[in-house]
C-alpha cells in the first residue's frame, strides 16, 4: 500500500487549526518522499431529510418560502430558504426535476430507504441494493481507520420503508446508524479508558482467535437448526466475519494513536431534544471525521420518513416553530404554510451551509477540503408524499472537475438521480459502468 504525500503535508497543515493530530506513522512515509504528485483524499457525504419541502407556485405571494430557487441555469436566485447558501453560490448546484423512477410506485412515505440506492423495492421481499456511499467506501474506505460513518437522528436501521439509515451493504442489508454524539466521538477519537496499549494489543489478538473459534462453533450449531434459522445464523456469521476483518484493520492502526481533538467547542451531550445543538454536533463530528481523515465517507439521515415514529418529527417545535414536521409538510400548501415549513428548511440549510463553509475554509494543498469532497443534500419527496422532483443540492468537488453556480432543472423522463450517482462515483475515482438504474452520466456538472 503506498501512502501519498498528503500525509506529510497534513501534519503541518493541521497544526494550529484546532486539531492536534498525531500523525499516522507508517513505513510508507519514505515512499511519499519519492512520489510528489499531491493527491488529496477524495470524500463523499450525503445528508437527507424527510417529508419534502414547500413549493408555492411561481406567482404565489409566499414564493420566497419555496425551497427551489427562482430563475434557472447560472441566472438563478436563492429564495429565503436556501439563502444561507448565498456565500457558497459558486460551490453549489441546485438540481430539480430528477428522482428515482423505481420509487414512483412506492408509498409516499417509503422512499427514504432507497434515496442512496435507487433500488426497486417492493413489499414482501423489500430487497435493497448497495448504497452510493458504501460503493464508494469499498474503495475510499481502504486508507482510513473507518471505512465509513453512518449516522441518523433516530439511530439503528428502522423497519423496511421506514429506514433510519441511508446506508446499505453490498447484500442490500441496512447498516445501523449511530445517533449519539458521545458514541460517535468515542468511536472516532475516544481512547479506551483503563486499557493500556499492551492490553489493547492482547485483546485485539484475542479477538481474532475468539471470532475464529466462534465461527467454527456456530457452524456446528447451524446443523441443528431449521432452514429459516440457518439464514438468521448466516447473518450472524457474516457479521462475525466482517468484524474479524475490522479487527485486522484495527490491528493495522493500533500503532497510530487516534487523533486528539479539542472537545471544548463540541457538545457531546447534545441529544435530539435540543435539535439546534444536536444537529450542529452531528455536523461538527462529520467535519472532524473528514478533517482528521478518520473516514472519507459519511451519511446522515436527519429524520426518518414516518411522522409517528421519527424523533425528528418534534424538531421544528423544539425550535419554537409551531407544529410537528410531518404536519408542517402536510400544511405547506395551506395559507401561511409555506412560510412555516420554509423557516424550518432554512434552519436546516443554515446548518448544512455552516458545514460546507467549514470544509471550504479548511485548506488542503492549494484548495480546500470541500474541493475534493462531494456533498449531496436532499430529500426523496418534493411536496410531501410525492416521490418525484427531489429537492437536491450538490456541493464541492471543484478540484475534481465539477462546476457549480447553477440551478439545473430536468424533465424526469430524460434524467434520473442514478445518473448523478454514476458521475459522483466517476469523479471520486470509483468508476463503474452502471449504478442501479442509471442510463448515462450527468454531464451538466462537469467542467
Amino acid at each position, binding site marked *: 500500500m503506498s501512502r501519498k504525500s498528503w500525509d506529510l503535508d497534513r501534519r503541518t497543515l493541521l497544526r494550529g487549526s484546532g486539531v492536534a493530530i498525531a500523525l499516522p506513522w507508517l513505513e510508507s512515509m519514505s515512499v511519499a518522499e519519492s512520489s510528489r504528485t499531491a493527491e488529496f483524499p477524495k470524500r463523499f457525504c450525503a445528508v437527507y431529510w424527510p417529508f419534502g419541502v414547500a413549493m408555492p407556485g411561481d406567482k404565489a405571494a409566499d414564493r420566497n418560502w419555496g425551497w427551489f430557487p427562482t430563475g434557472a441555469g447560472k441566472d438563478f436566485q436563492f429564495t429565503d430558504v436556501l439563502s444561507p447558501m448565498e456565500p457558497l453560490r459558486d460551490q453549489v448546484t441546485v438540481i430539480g426535476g430528477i428522482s428515482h423512477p423505481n420509487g414512483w410506485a412506492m408509498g409516499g412515505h417509503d422512499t427514504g430507504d432507497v434515496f442512496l440506492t435507487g433500488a426497486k423495492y417492493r413489499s414482501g421481499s423489500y430487497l435493497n441494493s448497495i448504497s452510493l456511499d458504501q460503493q464508494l467506501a469499498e474503495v475510499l474506505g481502504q486508507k482510513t481507520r473507518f471505512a465509513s460513518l453512518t449516522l441518523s437522528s433516530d439511530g439503528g436501521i428502522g423497519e423496511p420503508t421506514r429506514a433510519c439509515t441511508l446506508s446499505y451493504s453490498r447484500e442490500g442489508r441496512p447498516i445501523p446508524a449511530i445517533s449519539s454524539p458521545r458514541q460517535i466521538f468515542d468511536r472516532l477519537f475516544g481512547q479506551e479508558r483503563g486499557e493500556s496499549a499492551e492490553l489493547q494489543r492482547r485483546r485485539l489478538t484475542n479477538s481474532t482467535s475468539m471470532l475464529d473459534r466462534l465461527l467454527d462453533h456456530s457452524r456446528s*450449531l447451524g446443523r441443528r437448526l431449521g432452514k429459516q434459522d440457518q439464514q438468521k445464523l448466516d447473518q450472524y456469521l457474516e457479521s462475525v466475519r466482517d468484524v474479524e476483518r475490522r479487527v485486522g484493520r484495527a490491528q493495522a492502526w493500533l500503532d497510530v494513536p487516534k487523533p486528539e481533538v479539542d472537545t471544548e467547542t463540541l457538545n457531546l451531550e447534545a441529544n435530539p431534544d435540543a435539535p439546534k445543538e444536536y444537529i450542529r454536533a452531528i455536523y461538527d463530528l462529520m467535519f472532524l471525521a473528514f478533517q482528521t481523515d478518520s473516514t472519507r465517507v459519511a451519511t446522515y439521515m436527519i429524520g426518518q420518513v414516518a411522522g409517528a415514529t421519527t424523533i425528528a418529527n418534534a424538531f421544528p417545535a423544539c425550535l419554537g416553530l409551531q407544529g410537528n414536521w410531518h*404536519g408542517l409538510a402536510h400544511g405547506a400548501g395551506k395559507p*401561511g404554510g409555506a412560510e412555516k415549513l420554509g423557516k424550518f428548511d432554512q434552519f436546516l440549510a443554515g446548518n448544512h451551509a455552516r458545514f460546507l463553509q467549514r470544509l471550504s475554509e479548511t485548506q488542503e494543498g492549494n484548495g480546500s477540503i470541500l474541493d475534493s469532497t462531494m456533498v449531496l443534500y436532499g430529500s426523496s419527496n418534493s411536496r410531501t408524499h410525492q416521490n418525484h422532483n427531489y429537492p437536491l443540492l450538490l456541493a464541492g468537488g471543484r478540484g475534481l472537475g465539477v462546476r457549480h453556480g447553477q440551478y439545473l432543472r430536468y424533465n424526469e423522463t430524460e434524467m434520473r438521480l442514478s445518473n448523478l450517482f454514476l458521475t459522483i462515483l466517476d469523479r471520486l475515482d470509483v468508476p463503474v459502468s452502471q449504478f442501479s438504474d442509471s442510463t448515462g452520466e450527468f454531464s451538466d456538472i462537469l467542467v
Partner: protein
Amino acid sequence: MVTRVGRLTCGSCRAWLFMIISIATSLTESAAVEKQLADQLPDFSAEVRPRLVQHCFRCHGPQQQKAALRLDTLDPGFDAESAETWHDVLNRISVGDMPPEGEPELATNDREILTAWLRGNIDRVLRDRNGRRQETVLRRLTRYEYNNTLRDLLGINFDFAADLPPEANSADGFRNNGSVLGISPLQIEYYLKAARLAMDKAIVTGPPPQVYSQRFESPSGNTRQQENVTGRRLPPHGRFPATIQQYPRAGEFIVRVKAGAEIPAGMGNPHLLLTMGLRSDTESPAKPIGEIDIRASVAQPQVYEFRGRMESFPLPGHNPKFPGVTISAINVYDDGLGVIRPPKYKPIKFNDAQRMLVQEAAKKNVHQFPVIAGQRGSKLEQQISGQLRKLQVRLEEQRLISPEDSNRTDLAYRMFDIHRGVAAEAEQMQMLAEQQQPDDPQQYLDAYRLLNANLLADRQQILDRFDGVEPIDRRTKRMAEPLEPVPERSTIVLDYLEFEGPIYETWPPESHAALLPPSEQPEPQRAREAIAALMQRAWRRPVTANEVDSIVSFYEEIRPQAASFEEAMRECFAMVLIAPEFLYLVERKDVESERLSQYELASRLSYFLWSTLPDEELLSLAAMGRLSDVQQLETQVSRMLRDDRSSEFVQHFTNQWLHLPGIDRVAINPEYYPDFDDGLKSQMRQQTQAFFAEVLHGNESALNFIDSEFTMLNEPLARHYGLQLPDGGPRGADFERVELPAGSDRGGLLTQGSILLLNSTGEDSHPIRRAVWLLDRILGSPPPPPPPDVPELNTEEAELATLPLKQQLELHRTREACHDCHRAIDPWGVAFESFDAVGRMRDTVLRKRGKQRLQSAVDDVAELPNGKVIAGVRELQQHLLSSERDRFAETLVRKLLAYAIGRSLVLADQPVIEELVEEFRGQDYRLRDLVIAIVSSEVFGSR
C-alpha cells in the same frame, strides 16, 4: 394425529360442515374426503371467477390495484403466499368491508359461493400443512432483553445496551419479532465491547479502590444563581443541590437522604427525585438516580437510600470548565400551584388616571396655617407645608387601596410612612407653634386643628381603615419573613444528603465471587469449572463437554500471554457472551418432536413474562422435566406475574401493542396549551400501564380496555382530566384505583390521555390518526398505507383551512383518490372529537390561522362504515362492546400471542387463535386466564 381446526362462524355452508366432520377422521380417510370435498367446493372458473370479475377486479385487477391488491393474477390454487392474501379477502368480505359502499352489493347467493370457496380452500391448506406449523424463527434478544439478561446474570445494574443500535417494530407492532431482529457487524462489535466492559466491572484485580464520601447539610455551590434553591426546605419544585468535587469515575455509589415531610391537610406526599450530572445551574444534562414518595414525618425523619453506577451518569471530561458532579434532591410533587417564588418587594402600582386623580385631590386638600399678627410664610412653615403635601399624596393614594390588598409588604411600608409623616407633623407643628406664638403655643395648635378639621378627620378615617396593618420601616428590610400568606404546601424537610462510593459489600465483590469462586484448585481446572458454570447460566441450558472444550481451548491459547488469570477469564467469559447461544433464543430443530425442550420452554416463559433469563425455579423444573405440565405452567405463570419482574411484560407489551412511546414524538404547542406540563406525558403512559397491570393482576375482564367503571389515576392526571371525584380523588404521584362516576367518559383505554395525545397533532385532535390507531390496535384491521403520490388537498382553496374539521374531512373524502379508504377510516376518529390534543374534554375546537382564531362547536357524530350513526365516545364504546366484541377479543389474542412467541402470525395459526378466542370468551375475557391459556397452548410449547 388430530388436526385442530377452530370453529368458524358460518354454518350455512354444507361443504364447511363436512370439513369439520372430516377433521377427526384418519389420514387415509381424509384423502378420500378431500376429493369429495374438492368436488363440493364451488368451481373456480365456472362459479367463482365470474363473481370476482363482476365485484372485485375493477379496483383490484389489471387497471387499478387499490390497497396494492391485485386479485386477477392471484393463484386460485392457494399456494403458500396467495393463501395469506385470500384469507384477508375472506375477512374483508366477512366483516362487510368489501365491496365498499357505493359499489353493487353482493347478493346473498354470491356471497355464499365466494365465502364457501375461500373457506373451503383455506381449510384445505391448513389441513395440508398438518404438522408443518409455522416455525418461530431464531430470534436474538432485543436491546432491553439483552440488558436485563446481562444485569441479572452478573448482578450489575448498568446500561450495557447503551451503544447498541435501537430496534424498530415489526409490521404488527412488535419489537421482539425474530424476523425483523437483524444483526450487523456494528452490533457484533458492540456486543463484544459490552461483554468486555461487563467483565471489567464484574471481575476485579488489586486492592479495593478508594472510597469517597461527603455529607451535605446545606445546598452547595453558588446557590443564588440557581433556580428554586430553597435551602433544606423543599416545597414543590424546590431543589437542594450538592456538588461533590472528589468522586470515583466508576463503580456503584449510594446516596442517602435523611428527610421528613410536612403535609398539609388535603395534600399528597411530597415526591423526592434525585438526579446526578454536571453543574446544576444550567440546563446541562443530569440523569435521574431514583425517586420516592416521602412519607416520614419531620419529627421522625427517615433515611432514604438510592444506588447507581457512576459511569451511567454524565461526568465532567478532563480539565472541565465546571468541575465536580452535582447531585440534586428535587421535590417534584405537583400540587397544581406551580412554582411559588419567595415574594420580592414591588410597590403597589397606579395607572395614569389614578395618578392624575391623586395629584388633583392632593392639590385641593391643602393644609392651612393660622395667621398670627400678619406673620406668614416662615421657613419652617414652608417646610412643614411641603412635607404635608407629600403626606397628603400618600393619603390620597391610600383611598384607592384596599386594606385587604394582597401586597402586604407595600401596605406595611406605606402605613409606616404615613404614621411617620403624622408624627413628624405633630413634632414640627409644636416647633412652629412655639416659634409663631411663643406666649401660647396651644392656642396656635388649636387654631391649626380648627382650620384643618375636615382634613384631619378625613385623615383619621383613612388611618382607621388600615388599622389592622402593622407598619414596617422599609429601611429595616424585614423581608426575610415574607408578609404575604404563603400557601401551605407539601414540603420535604431535608436533614442531610450523603454520597458514598464506590461501594463494595465485600472485596472482591459478589459479582467477582459468583464468576470466579475462591478455589484452591490449579488454574486450568478452575477455569474449566468457571467457564462451564457461566455457560450454563448464560446459555440457559446444560452445556456439553464439547461446548465447554471450545471455550477452554481458547483459554489455553490466551492464558500464556495474559497478564493474569483474571484477564484471561474475562476474555473467555466475553466469548461466552457473544456466542449465538447467548444472543439468540436458540431452539433446536434437529430432533423429531416439534415440542420445545424443557429448557427452551423455560426461556420462552421468562422472556415472555420477564424479558430476562429464567430463574433457578424455572430451570430446576426444566431439569426435572416437569415444566410442560399444564398444572405446573399455570402455577408458574401465576408466580411469575406476582414477581416484580412481570412489570417488564406490562411495560413492553403495552408499549408495543398500543404504541405508547409515540407520545414523546408529539410536541405539544404551548400556544394552544400554555399550561401543559410535558412531565404529564410520562404519567399518561404510566396510567395506561398501571391500568393494564390492574386488569392483569386482578384477572379482570379485558373488556375493561374498551370501557370500565374504574381507572388508575394519580393527582396530577386527575387534575388534568378535571375529574370531580369523591374525597377530591387521589393525592400524590402514585397511581391508585379510582371508581369513576356513572356515565364517565374516562373508562377504558381509548380515552386515556396517552392514547388521545399520541394520536394528536400537538395542537388539535387528529381524527384520522385516532381512527387508524383504533382499527389497527383494537380491531386488528389496519387500513392500507396511503398509495404513492397522494395529491395534497386543493391548496388554492384558502377557505378550506377555515372549515370545521369534520367538513374538511368530508371534503377530503369527495376526492376520488381519498374516498375509498377514508370512508372506512374517518368516522372512527370523529367520535373522539370531544377530546383535545392533550386528552382533555372540550366543547369547542380552537384553531389558529395566523392571527385568526377560529372556534367551532365540537361535532362528534359519526356514521360508521356499516351505516350506524354514533354520537361521541360513550356510544362508540357501547358499539364496540356490543358489535365488535369478537373482533377486539381476537385482536387482543393475536397481539398477545405474537408477543409471547416472538413472531408474526400466519394463516396456519388461525385454528389456534380461534380456539384461544373461544376459551377467552368462555372465561369472560379474563386477562390472566388468557395469558395462562396462551402459555398452555400448543403453539407456545412448539417451535
